[in-house]
């Protein structure tokens, strides 16, 4: 999930810094590739600090959680839960391919194993798999612009991303719709191999955050249970901060 955030931040950072040069032109393979790869490259090497809250609504419960997170480059991320009290201090560290979770109640750090992969991450609609996967848009997908123009009263560009043959992703296709002028993402659809919609991520509440305009609310809705959702709200965001490598170690998991 966090890499999803990182990707989004990076993507936004790039497109808002350059100009809407591409707004008018039609499908150009090189342009798309360049765009996506620059996005991927951009958030690598960045560091960030963010405070987010997450609300999950399912058939059986509604819960809210607030957490802070740090990232350095692509490899290192750390986030800790601030609220609610009963989960405060729970922390997850991702360093390369190692993922560890510290559980304050039992004062234990466990390494993520395949056995845990099945579970939803923190009870949300994202899986631990989403957390682990390092799908790089350019590496894993072939992208084209499938639509440019007006839709629902907005000028948008729609990308269709088809996973490459060898990419370790379960999806059959992704479509990403961004606003034509600001290049802020509007919605992302995930389809299975039969091109049946599996889940939708929508972006809203565009605000100024971390020095730029970006959507502060992300909502994940599963296609088979449209009444359920997982919503992330970004309260705070700082990019390119000073953060030492020592933060991303097992010992720092337990502190604070």
């Amino acid at each position, binding site marked *: 999930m966090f890499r999803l955030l990182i990707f989004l931040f990076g993507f936004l950072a790039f497109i808002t810094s350059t100009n809407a040069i591409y707004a008018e032109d039609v499908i150009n393979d090189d342009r798309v590739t360049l765009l996506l790869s620059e996005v991927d490259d951009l958030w690598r090497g960045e560091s960030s600090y963010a405070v987010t809250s997450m609300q999950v609504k*399912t058939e059986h419960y509604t819960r809210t959680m607030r957490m802070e997170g740090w990232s350095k480059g692509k490899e290192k991320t750390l986030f800790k839960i601030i609220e609610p009290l009963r989960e405060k201090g*729970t922390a997850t560290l991702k360093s390369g391919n190692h993922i560890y979770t510290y*559980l304050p109640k*039992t004062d234990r750090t*466990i390494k993520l194993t395949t*056995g845990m992969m099945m579970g939803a991450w923190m*009870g949300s609609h994202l899986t631990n798999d989403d957390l682990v996967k390092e799908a790089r848009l350019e590496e894993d997908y072939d992208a084209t612009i499938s639509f440019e123009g007006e839709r629902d009263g907005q000028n948008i560009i729609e990308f269709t991303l088809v996973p490459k043959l060898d990419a370790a992703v379960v999806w059959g296709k992704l479509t990403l719709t961004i606003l034509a002028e600001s290049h802020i993402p509007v919605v992302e659809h995930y389809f299975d191999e039969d091109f049946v919609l599996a889940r939708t991520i929508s972006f809203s509440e565009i605000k100024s955050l971390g020095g730029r305009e970006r959507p502060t609310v992300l909502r994940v809705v599963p296609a088979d249970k449209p009444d359920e959702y997982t919503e992330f709200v970004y309260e705070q965001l700082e990019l390119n901060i000073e953060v030492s490598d020592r933060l991303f170690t097992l010992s720092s998991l337990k502190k604070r």
Partner: protein
Amino acid sequence: MNFAKLAARNVYRNSHRSLVTVAAMAFACAMMIVFSSLMEGVIAGSERNVVAMNTGDIQIHQQMYRDDPDIYKMIETSTQLSENIRQAGFFAAERLFTFGLMASDDSSSGVQLRGVDLSYESTVTEIYQHILQGNWLENGDTHGVVIGKKLARLLDVSLGDELIFVGQTADGYMANDSFRVRGILKSIASDIDSASVFMSNGMLRELISLPEQGAHQIVIMRSDRKQDLAEATKKIKMLVKQDLEVMSWRQLMPVISRFLETAQVQTLIMLLFTYIAVASVVLNAMLMSVFERIHEFGIMKAIGVSPWQIIRLVYAETLIQTVVASILGLILGISLSWYLQQYGLDMTSLADGMTFAGIALDPVWHAELSVNSSLVPIGFLFVMAAIAVLYPAVKVALMRPLEAIHHQ
């Protein structure tokens, strides 16, 4: 003509031969009693392992729970329902389940947590006695768990070691707590041995924030073991009234059910073979006994004894020998079976863990004496002897007196 006296005297006259015949029959009879009892014991043991160790006679679930186990599919009125079932003369206990990850110092594994009602579980299953090491769960012990044998090995833990559980609560949070191993179970079934962790219902409710009322499963036992299972199931269904799934263990585990049925057939086949072997001994003995007295039978016929009476005489002699043999066989068979029932036949040197169709078999075989296992072999013996002696009896009865007298 007094058959009984004549028959008895004839038997006594050929004491040697009678002795061998009786001995052979008694031995076979005793052997079959022991074999039947042993088989019954093993089959009952397997059934017990299935039923009394885990499944119970009847189970109630919410519809679709078994297809897709989900902590939200609860029987909400389980406490009241269980009480009603107990009033109706059965034993009942509530259970809770969930899945998650259990981690020890060295490794972790996916497990199923099984919550049991400490007050009532012992009335429906014998699992609390099936402990290999340590103890069963105790009231008031808020962090003790009992795990399967293979799981203990996989996680490399022994009594007193700590285990950490990670899972998800009913309200979407992370379920996380540490527990201590209080006991390790003997083999029950492959899935239980390798992935089950037992704790009290209260502990599980707290761990995953389940509501105060409700259970995933109600296990029911007949208080009278002789009561017909199908009937009992129907009775429970009527008590339940709501749209819940009520199934007997035979419906829940058709493969095991079938196996146990075929096992009984196997016993009968063994009986048959053994008795065919006995039959040849009896046949031979009776043949000889009859034919060496053919001169005598010839004279009897000459003085007017009818063929029918001759047959009756021969049968009477056989009957006496069979009766004596049965008594001896019964005594020998029952005492040996009783011994095996108490002490069992220890097969552990051969096999530490044995499974058939996923169910663990107890490596110590206990015989189970029953009316069936002692009387069926005896019945068979009589039938066998009667058949074996038919040929000689009829042959000599129909012989012409003159031929018989001159027969050498």
